[in-house]
């Protein structure tokens, strides 16, 4: 991702043409979309290759501990289309995926799109809520503790503890206290907002702690810059300075990091879903990998690639919105 954005060049005096800037942004989006499609195709192909090269013949896995006879083997090959050459299978898979058909799960015996479709909702809700928890935590903690020695030290300790706590353990602790003992939140399932609170905390807090550290660091630098002195001299309150002016300057690295971490939320969701007995893609993925349920594994790989593409595009666009200097750079970049 665009790390140079963290230290943008010194602003040179230039006429900022809004029209040009928009043109640059539009080109950038189109380019992003094209590369995004390329990434998706690459992910599909690599995943397909990967599962082909993985040990174990699919027919053996599907046979499990059943009797192996030529009839059974032929029936399995015919049912799952394993009787044609690998290249044909690949082409057929690409064609089907392009039409939104991800095949049928070997193990669950259902269409993959149906499995993923039914599990994507709970996972998005969980990761979305976790992200909200993380961002609120990070912004509140970073803005209230930056350049304040004592509270900074406490926040640092809390963050360190949260980062180094496995989400599995945090989940169990949260459940023990708030569900089993105090009975404020239900133990499991996916019913209503109250069931989302504990899983979102368990997943989001450690993420928030990481972002908060980066954000505070950026904020402290920003508050040392000359503009902060200028704003203070306008007798703007300290909080307004931090929230309205400082945060915007400090946000870029944190945004980069968040975009990167969100992709990893799916990994964390695996454990949280298991602990809280929630439906979701994480559990489906782990079970599919262990059982060599290839259609599901492939679909999840493609979906993750898609999510990464979307997020990194969003992050790039967010840069342009957050920092006007980059819009001009984008335009200059085009002319170079």
């Amino acid at each position, binding site marked *: 991702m665009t790390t140079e954005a963290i230290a943008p060049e010194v602003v040179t005096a230039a006429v900022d043409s809004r029209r040009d800037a928009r043109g640059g942004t539009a080109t950038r989006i189109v380019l992003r979309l094209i590369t995004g499609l390329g990434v998706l195709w690459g992910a599909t192909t690599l995943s397909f290759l990967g599962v082909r090269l*993985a*040990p*174990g*013949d699919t027919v*053996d*896995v*599907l*046979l*499990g*501990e*059943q*009797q*192996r*006879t030529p*009839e*059974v083997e032929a*029936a*399995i090959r*015919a*049912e799952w289309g394993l009787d044609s050459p690998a290249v044909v299978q690949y082409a057929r898979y690409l064609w089907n995926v392009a039409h939104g058909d991800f095949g049928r799960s070997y*193990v*669950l*015996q*259902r269409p993959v799109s149906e*499995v993923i479709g*039914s*599990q994507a909702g*709970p996972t998005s809700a969980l990761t979305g809520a976790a992200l909200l928890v993380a961002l609120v935590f990070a912004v509140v903690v970073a803005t209230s503790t930056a350049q304040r020695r004592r509270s900074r030290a406490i926040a640092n300790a809390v963050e360190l503890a949260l980062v180094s706590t496995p989400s599995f353990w945090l989940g*169990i602790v949260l*459940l*023990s206290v708030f*569900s*089993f*003992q105090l*009975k404020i939140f*239900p*133990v*499991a*399932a*996916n019913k209503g907002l109250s069931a989302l609170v504990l899983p979102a905390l368990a997943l989001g807090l450690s993420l928030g702690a990481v972002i908060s550290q980066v954000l505070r660091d950026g904020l402290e630098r920003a508050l040392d810059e000359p503009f902060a002195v200028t704003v203070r001299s306008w007798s703007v309150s300290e909080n307004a300075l931090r929230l309205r002016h400082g945060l915007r300057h400090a946000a870029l690295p944190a945004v980069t990091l968040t975009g990167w971490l969100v992709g990893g939320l799916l990994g964390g969701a695996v454990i949280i*879903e*298991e*602990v*809280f*007995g*929630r*439906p*979701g893609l994480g*559990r*489906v993925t782990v*079970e599919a*990998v*262990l*059982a*060599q349920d290839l259609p599901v594994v492939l679909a999840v790989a493609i979906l993750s690639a898609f999510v990464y593409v979307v997020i990194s595009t969003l992050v790039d666009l967010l840069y342009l919105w957050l920092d006007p200097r980059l819009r001009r750079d984008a335009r200059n970049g085009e002319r170079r």
Partner: protein
Amino acid sequence: MAVLAAACGGTDTAARESAQPVSGGSLTWGVETEPTTLNPHLNGQSNTHLMLRNVFESLLARTTEGGFVGWLATGHEISPDGLTYTFPLREGVKFTDGNPLTATAVARNFTTMQDVSYSGGWSAGPLSHLAAVTARDERTVVFTLKDPYAPFLDFAAGFPLISPAAWDKPQLKAGGPEIAGTGPFVLDRYVKGQELHFRKNPDYNWAPQSAKHQGPAYLDEVTYRFLPESSVRTGALTSGQVDLIEGVSGNDAALFRDNPDFTYSTGLNNGSPYTLYWNATFGPATDERVRKALNNSVDVNAVLQSIYRGERTRGWGIASSVDTLFYDKSIEGTYGADKAAANRLLDEAGWTAKDSDGFRTKDGQRLTIELVQAQSTVRDQREVLLQAVQAQAKQNAGIDLKLSYVDLGTYSELRKKNAFGSIANSDTITGGIDIENHWYPPTPLGTLNYSRATDPELSTWLRAAASTTDTAERAKQYAQLQRFAIVDKAYGLPLYIPENQIATGAHVYGAGYRPYKQLPENAYDIWVDRG
């Protein structure tokens, strides 16, 4: 976790015994395992049958002693030549989609199962003996076998039956609400990753003779909540968020046992114990002396005590000790835990040198046995158990027992290439079919024959046992096989008998285990009295 129990109110145990069954109400049951498919024909996860058995029923039920009693069939008859099995069906049984239970409907369950494009080879073993299954009339099903095969009764009597309307459903293989059975409950909702929800079948009036009551189920609704994490199941029960849980870890058992707020019961599984099968056709274990040394190097009782705190039962033979028909108890104490013998055997076998890590070697090769287990089958703290076994093999005899947990693809490849030193396995198949799977030659019949034993005696005993319906005679054949395979040849080291645990709140009555099969019973006999 111990503090959790404090939150619950007290109940009177005396009231519990005098309680009368109450109809109505609902129950939430926290379970460990989610079914991969809800089609009972294609589901091999024995831990999910407590759910599927709410919907799908069979021809006959078992008694604790191993006998058969009427259920959807009023009885059974086997011709003197052992080739014809006749089942007269009970009157008035209906599937919950309105279809009557006819002999044709029953027969179609079995004929469709013979079609590999439907079954994918499931149940191929017992079905390979079936020549034809026909409806003699509306109410009589007749099975004709190719050869006398006594285990067929256990298979046919326990086979779950689905409605004839199911065969045309697009979701046939995945199962679900549109596949009807005849059971006391109807599956009306499945949320993947979350729960199964059943409601009462009000027309139900054909419970097996072994059930504790007749007529419709007591409960109006049952919800099975999937809670894979054992401490979460425990917390959910102690906090009253579920009424019943299945799968209680050894550490949590003390919370519920002898606690008036809960009931706790365990049931040893029938089938084969959790056994380390030594591959007699690969690596050092091809030498019988090495296999015997392996069995002698481990003090199984001590290992079980330290890992499970006395909460698990030692397995000794090829069958579970709860198998009243086929388990020969005389094998107990006849082998194992003899460090001196283990070392003597290895010396004799030429594994006399030792390397710097303390393992025995021969011609510069270390005495390594690689134990392979599919990651997806690791449960019940077995990874810790195996570590303890590994430590004993090293300490007592200098054997390097290498533990490999692999994905299913690698597992099936190693199995196919015969490149494993040992496979650990248990199963819950009954009727002698499990014994056949483990001890016939690997192809085509011995699908679970991990020791790769092919001694002709094994097949002779198995055939002799299968060709007679005299249970005592069958038991005698299996007893000979057991002594030969475990004591004389040391093809495997049985460790413990897997079990299920059920804990309930004090307001839940009637939860228990299926006779003979010994897996947790469905919700038919359960009632709740929340007082």
